């Protein structure tokens, strides 16, 4: 038994993506929300790699590489914003980020 149906990978990717959405919806800690975002990126990448394997194309792997790069940049900016918000608000509770300008 050396084969795995591609559906299994796609369903795993869907479950991971949904868990990421759940984290974004439920958690109040902004850092955990960011981690859930990374989880969703990861699930999308897994689906991409699965399709790359299915169609034997290498381009999808290159796209996944780009997604990773952009995600890394996004994390750097996001965490810098988080530090800045913590400096003004003294908290990273998302429920408290309810006013503009300070």
């Amino acid at each position: 038994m050396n084969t795995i149906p591609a559906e299994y990978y796609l369903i795993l990717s869907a479950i991971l993506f949904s868990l990421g959405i759940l984290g974004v919806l439920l958690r109040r800690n902004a850092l955990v929300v960011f981690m859930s975002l990374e989880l969703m990126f990861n699930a999308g990448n897994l689906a991409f790699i699965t399709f790359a394997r299915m169609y034997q194309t290498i381009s999808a792997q290159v796209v996944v590489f780009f997604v990773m790069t952009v995600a890394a940049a996004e994390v750097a900016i996001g965490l810098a914003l988080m530090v800045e918000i913590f400096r003004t608000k003294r908290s990273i509770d998302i429920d408290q980020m309810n006013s503009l300008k300070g």
Partner: protein
Amino acid sequence: MLIVFIVLAFVAVGTAISMLVTRNAIYSALFLVLNFGTVAILYLILGAPFIALSQITVYAGSVVVLFLFVIMLLGAEKLPGGEPLRWQRFLAFPLVILLVVDFAVNINRLGGTLALIDLPPRGYGEPVEIGKVLFTQYALPFEITAIILLVAVVGAIVLARPQQAGVSRRDLYKRDTQERK
């Protein structure tokens, strides 16, 4: 092969759930490392060794270390107080279950047309092949990614800089020169 996949899938889903459930953000980050590791092994099985290793270095390496740094810097492992919006939870769970069912139905509908995935052919997904495609067909997007990273670095430095750093630094410099005189 199937057994390996099932074990990895369970570990991935389990670590994702524990990441969401734990109250301590540091444990969340560590569960995230484990999750990235298992997904990297899945990439290896799918014939993407280059992506698997960049997953380890970029995500499990730098991104999670950045998370841990920020968590420890802010001391934000735990938030005080309970959940003020309980009704959100009752709304979120059914919606997410609906989403999973929707995904599953759609994937099932594709069922017959999707391939069986066996061991990848030799040489598929090697770094050499990816490099060839990356630097010929995708050379322009590659350069754009470089600019995005540069912008991100500059933006992160500008955002995380202490307030009025330039002024104080200039004052320091002024004081220093006056002392020298």
